[in-house]
């Protein structure tokens, strides 16, 4: 028996969207509802993610605002904030709510606008993203988020011999994948040379190792297991694991091991009665190329220390042994913070249904999504399977 099922999925293109949050969100939400064949009044509760609307556009208490805009005023709405893992946490709570019998049909989604074109400039956005690091024991050093993952990745390079070229190979793979995905922020391929020639943001990361600031929205309709068969194309939520870790990062036992991801993955695999070996494909949180290396190892998809070589030798390519980020990942598909988590759920749903269009993988039945927040101190891993 599945914990829940996704019966409808929708997302906007990730990129630049010069429209208010409610209009951006409606595009994803109404697509998800239509996909499910569900009318707005049938939704019993709304689980919503937005990380930074208060800081970026002075827009808070978004839950009822968005619900009103899409015809759902009056139902319980809860908003989640866990930095970049915001909407995965909304999803986890929605799964628990239908599994526990509190609701039968719920909407989960996220929206965020982060592009300098529609909001604040790069320096200001860098400061706002940095608010997820410890206010007293990290931010005063001038630490940025590329810096956080640079600290992890440098140590990983030191211990495992991961190279800047390995990191560049992750970017090349994900840009190639993104070029096949019409919803991706970046539509063009790149080369190792182009990545290694781009300016350094926080070493070892160059501009082309970093995901973009994106605007976008994503949404899914989640129903209880016993209702799932009455929908056309249900995909099972077999497991959702949720781990956290110590902040600040200097106090983590072994920061680059990302223990929260390992704990979340074990929990999700156990619920799904599966193992890493049985996962056909994965979407992982590659906010920086090094983050994909850490995540693919933490999920057990490749051995520790092999995350970089796996990207370089094609193991994680879309036609490889374990395709990782066939959507383009955050690196190329884009990263509209609060929409990223449910964006991964949309991707898993479409791939498992065989609905992913131009970037469809061959014969995938079981996928994993890994979405982290902050310095990976929140990580949620979801396993989905064909029903």
């Amino acid at each position: 028996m599945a914990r829940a099922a996704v019966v409808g999925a929708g997302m906007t293109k990730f990129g630049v969207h010069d429209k208010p949050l409610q209009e951006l969100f409606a595009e994803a939400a109404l697509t998800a509802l239509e996909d499910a064949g569900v009318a707005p009044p049938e939704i019993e509760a709304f689980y919503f993610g937005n990380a930074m609307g208060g800081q970026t556009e002075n827009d808070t208490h978004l839950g009822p605002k968005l619900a009103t805009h899409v015809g759902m005023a009056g139902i319980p709405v809860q908003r989640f904030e866990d930095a970049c893992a915001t909407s995965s946490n909304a999803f986890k709570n929605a799964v628990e709510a239908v599994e526990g019998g509190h609701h039968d049909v719920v909407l989960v989604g996220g929206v965020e606008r982060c592009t300098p074109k529609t909001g604040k400039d790069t320096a200001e956005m860098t400061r706002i993203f940095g608010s997820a690091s410890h206010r007293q024991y990290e931010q005063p050093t001038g630490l940025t988020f590329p810096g956080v993952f640079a600290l992890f990745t440098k140590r990983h390079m030191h211990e495992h011999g991961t190279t800047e070229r390995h990191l560049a190979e992750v970017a090349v793979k994900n840009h190639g994948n993104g070029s096949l995905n019409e919803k991706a922020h970046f539509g063009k391929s790149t080369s190792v040379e182009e990545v290694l020639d781009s300016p350094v943001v926080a070493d070892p990361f160059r501009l082309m190792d970093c995901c973009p600031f994106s605007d976008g929205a994503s949404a899914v309709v989640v129903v209880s297991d016993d209702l799932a068969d009455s929908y056309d194309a249900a995909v099972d939520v077999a497991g959702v694991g949720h781990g956290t870790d110590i902040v600040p990062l200097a106090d983590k036992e072994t920061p680059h091991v990302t223990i929260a991801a390992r704990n979340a993955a074990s929990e999700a695999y156990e619920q799904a009665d599966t193992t890493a070996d049985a996962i056909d494909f994965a979407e992982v949180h590659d906010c920086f190329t090094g983050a994909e290396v850490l995540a693919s190892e933490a999920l057990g998809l490749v051995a520790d220390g092999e995350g970089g070589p796996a990207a370089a030798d094609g193991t994680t390519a879309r036609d490889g042994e374990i395709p990782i980020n066939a959507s383009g990942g955050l690196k190329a598909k884009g990263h509209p913070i609060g929409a990223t988590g449910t964006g991964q759920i949309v991707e898993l749903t479409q791939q498992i249904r065989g609905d992913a269009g131009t970037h469809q993988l061959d014969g995938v039945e079981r996928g994993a999504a890994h979405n982290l927040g902050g310095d990976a101190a929140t990580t949620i891993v979801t396993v989905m399977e064909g029903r």
Partner: protein
Amino acid sequence: MMSDGLTHGEWSEAVADGELLGQRCPDCGAVQGAPKAACPHCGSTALETVALPTEGAVYTETTINVPPAGVEERGYQVVVVQLGDARVMGRLRGDAVGIGDRVALSDSITDEDGYVAPVFEAV
């Protein structure tokens, strides 16, 4: 038994005076570089304030070229330093360092809201 309650204010004053305070857990032995109300490993509230060594080895580091709003300089190095059983994050001043290099606390900096960070230099 309650923690002797190392506060952010006390930690900051110590940094400004050239000292680093941390916390040792009497129950599990873990040592933390940033003050907490309880041990993150075992939950003990009996944490003891300890003076950390001010010299140690770089655990990891990065050089930040795209700073957040409010930071004027570019190309500054942020380091995580292993100081005995604890680690502490700080800013590096002077010659660049790599993982394993020895550094020592040399100064502190204060951000726009008055929060301090330790500054280390190569030794």
